[in-house]
């Protein structure tokens, strides 16, 4: 009897252990929905268990030991992501993934209306960069992130800040948004791009081509919309610190007795960044706070030798042979300013019920810019923005959304020896908006909207006396868009926007796009859109005398710049390759440009509507998964820009490419990701307006700038320990590229501002 009981006890124990083992090893099996083939290398994130990440093995299985309900997020290359729940009473879950055909990271986007929709379903080509990817790349700002993703995109530090251009377009044709809201405070179309906190970004949406129908003026070339984080967890926290090697040490031991003591300290600030992102979902109320501090040091770029300007022969002005003019003074070093800035943002969401939602938000940005000019002055920038949003779902009729967005941007000059500052620039934007999206009729989605843009600008550059003067601009805009999906495999979007400006009258912009899925693997998109850009307040009213040397003069008679955009895109994929091809043309009419005009004894820089400018080109984007550990992303862009009266004024490079190689490795409580990202900016040739003395008479002439191809590569290694601690080591500009030519005229706007190879280290904690 005793023996029997012992055996029974032993059997029971083994059985229990077996159960224990079985209970701890819960299996998630991931397969292709159509073929039932197992999917190795799929990424599984346990959303309610601290975002723990697992990868499926060769059998498409993920073994987890966590108990209770598990909320799973699953993604795999060339498949659409999915979320599902492994219930506490389940030990096995079969997950079937649908194939996806997007080259972009396949996540939810906010394109044309208040509903979230997937990029695959969008009738417009949208490129999406996920926030997680930005964080892993060790970038300090969105400039680096966008340059690494968009071939040919360049952010250059120049005299007045940072200048952006891409594919023949400059900042005046690229609209930057945060959560769909505009920012004020532009300088030649450029914003302080430091205002975008890279660590608060959930994802970035990039829409190429004219999108004025939805976004209004300035959306004539591209729209870059940063969607910020909103946590869905009870408590989420990310905190990190990044330290980078100094660009250049300018002063070793600044002393308090130094005349330029503050200047000396400021231009040698450490390359530091700290960030904190905190969110809490308390049921009906969700809070999200993001704080970021960054400082960078200033440095010089050097050119050995003298500037040379090559003028090609032009008998009409008496230039009978090619002529090279060499500058008689050495090119001085080009100072690249450092800066120090803080971003704070707070959002509060209140979900009354499933149908009614409120949001209030506010952001504060403060920046000191430290240039290398020893003039006892540095620039200070301050910005407050905020707003209120409401969404109300009216039964099955549709959803009404209302919002008011305000932004106030100020720029000051601050003394380096006396505690005082002087305001030079104060720009205010108020933008109320009302939008209604109806899905009442099946297969129809109708969007109606009305919004107002009211902008006021106070500047010391609207009058000859340098006094602060206020100017304003006001537009009322209405738009309607219909998306129809009643035809099999086809999605059609048709819309029109009407804009009324008290100075320019009414402007109408239509848009039509269609997406056709030939097969699950093949789809085509065609887009026709009209865009427009209303002249800025500065372009209309600027009146500034630069030390008696020249004047920058606005033109109140400017007409809105208009453009027509056509694009055709298609996608192809097989089991290991994905390629997206997009060809486009963009015809600009009445393009607004600043040109030098010579009067008696006086040069003026004046804004004018030039005749036409055409951009034609194509982009190819691809993604290859070599094996579960290796990914390669690449893109190539070609653009051909028309000449103006035989002269190439546009500084675009025809050929640009990006390539990213990623290696991933995962073990229990340890993840490794290594990546190298290379941007290739092709050679470029353009002309710059100048004056040439021929036979004793000054003639208008253009010299030729010929800039060589260059590449910039970044290497990053991320290690994540215990799912919470991330250590990132990286090297910017791995191959130590330094521009040898700073160039004359506008050439310096096309020189990459890099001090050469610099390493960095980054530590991040995620709760």
């Amino acid at each position, binding site marked *: 009897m005793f023996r029997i009981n012992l055996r029974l006890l032993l059997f029971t124990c083994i059985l229990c252990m077996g159960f224990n083992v079985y209970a701890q090893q819960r299996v998630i099996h991931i397969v292709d929905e159509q073929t039932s083939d197992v999917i190795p290398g799929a990424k599984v994130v346990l959303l309610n268990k601290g975002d723990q990440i697992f990868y499926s093995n060769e059998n498409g299985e993920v073994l987890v030991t966590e108990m209770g309900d598990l909320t799973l997020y699953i993604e795999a290359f060339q498949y659409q992501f999915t979320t599902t729940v492994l219930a506490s009473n389940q030990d096995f879950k079969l997950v079937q993934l649908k194939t996806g055909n997007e080259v972009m990271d396949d996540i939810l986007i906010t394109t044309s209306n208040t509903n979230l929709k997937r990029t695959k379903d969008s009738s417009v080509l949208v490129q999406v960069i996920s926030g997680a990817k930005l964080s892993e790349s060790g970038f300090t700002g969105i400039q680096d992130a966008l340059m690494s993703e968009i071939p040919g995109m360049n952010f250059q530090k120049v005299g007045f800040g940072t200048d952006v251009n891409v594919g023949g377009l400059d900042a005046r044709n690229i609209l930057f948004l945060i959560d769909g809201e505009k920012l004020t405070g532009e300088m030649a179309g450029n914003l302080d791009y430091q205002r975008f906190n890279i660590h608060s970004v959930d994802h970035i949406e990039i829409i190429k081509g004219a999108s004025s129908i939805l976004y209004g003026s300035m959306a004539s070339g591209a729209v870059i919309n940063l969607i910020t984080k909103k946590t869905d967890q009870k408590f989420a926290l990310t905190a990190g610190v990044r330290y980078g090697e100094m660009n250049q040490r300018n002063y070793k031991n600044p002393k308090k007795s130094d005349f330029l003591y503050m200047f000396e300290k400021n231009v040698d600030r450490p390359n530091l960044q700290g960030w904190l992102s905190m969110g809490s979902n308390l049921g009906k109320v969700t809070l999200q706070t993001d704080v970021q501090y960054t400082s960078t040091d200033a440095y010089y770029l050097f050119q050995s030798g003298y500037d040379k300007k090559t003028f090609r022969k032009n008998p009409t002005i008496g230039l009978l042979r090619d002529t090279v003019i060499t500058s008689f003074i050495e090119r001085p070093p080009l100072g690249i300013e450092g800066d120090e800035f803080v971003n704070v943002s707070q959002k509060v969401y209140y979900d009354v019920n499933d149908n009614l939602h409120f949001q209030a938000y506010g952001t504060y940005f403060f920046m000191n810019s430290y240039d290398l000019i020893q003039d006892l002055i540095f620039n200070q920038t301050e910005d407050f923005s905020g707003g209120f949003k409401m969404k109300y779902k009216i039964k099955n009729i549709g959803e009404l959304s209302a919002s008011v967005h305000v932004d106030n941007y100020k720029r000051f000059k601050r003394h380096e020896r006396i505690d005082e500052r002087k305001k030079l620039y104060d720009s205010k934007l108020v933008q109320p908006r009302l939008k209604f999206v109806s899905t009442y009729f099946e297969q129809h989605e109708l969007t109606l909207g009305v919004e107002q843009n009211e902008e006021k600008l106070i500047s010391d550059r609207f009058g000859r006396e340098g006094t602060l003067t206020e100017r304003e601009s006001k537009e009322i805009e209405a738009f309607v868009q219909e998306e129809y999906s009643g035809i099999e495999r086809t999605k059609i979007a048709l819309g029109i926007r009407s804009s009324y400006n008290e100075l320019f009258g009414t402007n109408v912009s239509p848009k039509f796009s269609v997406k056709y899925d030939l097969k699950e693997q093949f789809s085509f998109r065609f887009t026709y859109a009209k865009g427009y850009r209303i002249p800025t307040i500065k372009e209309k009213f600027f009146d500034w005398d630069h030390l008696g040397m020249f004047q920058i003069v606005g033109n109140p008679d400017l007409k809105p710049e208009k453009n027509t955009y056509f694009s055709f895109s298609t996608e192809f994929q097989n089991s290991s390759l994905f390629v997206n091809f997009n060809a486009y043309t963009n015809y600009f009419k009445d393009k607004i440009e600043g040109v030098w005009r010579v009067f008696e*004894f006086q040069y003026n820089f004046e804004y004018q509507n030039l005749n036409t400018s055409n951009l034609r080109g194509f982009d190819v984007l691809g993604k290859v998964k070599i094996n579960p550990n290796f990914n390669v992303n690449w893109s190539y862009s070609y653009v051909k820009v028309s000449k103006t009266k035989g002269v190439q004024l546009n500084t675009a490079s025809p050929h640009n490419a990006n390539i990213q190689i990623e290696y991933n490795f995962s073990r229990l409580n340890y993840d490794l990701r290594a990546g190298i990202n290379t941007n290739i900016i092709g050679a470029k040739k353009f002309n710059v307006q100048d004056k040439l003395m021929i036979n004793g008479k000054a003639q208008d002439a253009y010299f030729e700038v010929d800039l060589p191809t260059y590449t910039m590569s970044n290497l990053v290694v991320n290690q994540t320990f215990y799912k919470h601690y991330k250590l990132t080591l990286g090297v910017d500009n791995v191959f130590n590229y330094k521009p040898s030519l700073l160039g004359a005229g506008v050439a310096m706007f096309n020189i990459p501002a890099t001090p050469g190879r610099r390493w960095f280290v980054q530590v991040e904690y995620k709760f």
Partner: protein
Amino acid sequence: MKKYLDSITPFVLFLTLAFVPMGCVEYDALPYDGKNLPRLTEYSNDWLYYNLREDKFLNPFSSGDSLFRSADRPIVEGEQKDRLDWDIAFNRFNIRTNSGLSGKGQGGAYDMGAVSYESITSISQIPKQALFVTDTVISITMSQEQWILESSKTGNTDPWFDPNNGPKQMKSTANLLLANALRFSGPPPSYQPSFHVYIIRSAEGNRFFKLLIISWYNPELEIGESGGLISYKCDEIF
């Protein structure tokens, strides 16, 4: 390992939060103990003459092109050549000594290099074989008024300022060595001192002064002003 990582969490959080107040501006420099020019000099030959021996400016109030004599302009262009009552003169960022083509004096300049101003205390520190550089021909910026005046004689209507080549230039005389004391470049306009200590020999050739150009700007500069009241230190050494 996990325990160790947990312990660094508060450190990361602390560092992150600690950065936020770093954006404050702190005015902790010591008061300025140098000198400033009494007035801004203008384009063309508007020279501000300085007698170092008596620590006195000859024309501290007059301005404009010093071609014509007026009540507040006791010295006009050309007249300085025969006078020994000045040792050094300033026109914008150009500096003359009473030597060479600028004046018949025994003046000149010698560069002691990027050394501390306080470290130069005695003429014995000047190398025995030191060659003092004397004045020669240089280009200076012509005033807009002079350009219009001269152009009207020839019918030339070219602008005074050219976006690629800057304002019109004219020939004058100055000290080439001291041209390095404050170098101009731009745009944007930048005045870069060399922070070298220069030895200035007096017009009579028997006294020596150390000169350090500190800045194109004066410490009390009002925001929006373009500078020109040069900050400098200058003392006689024996």
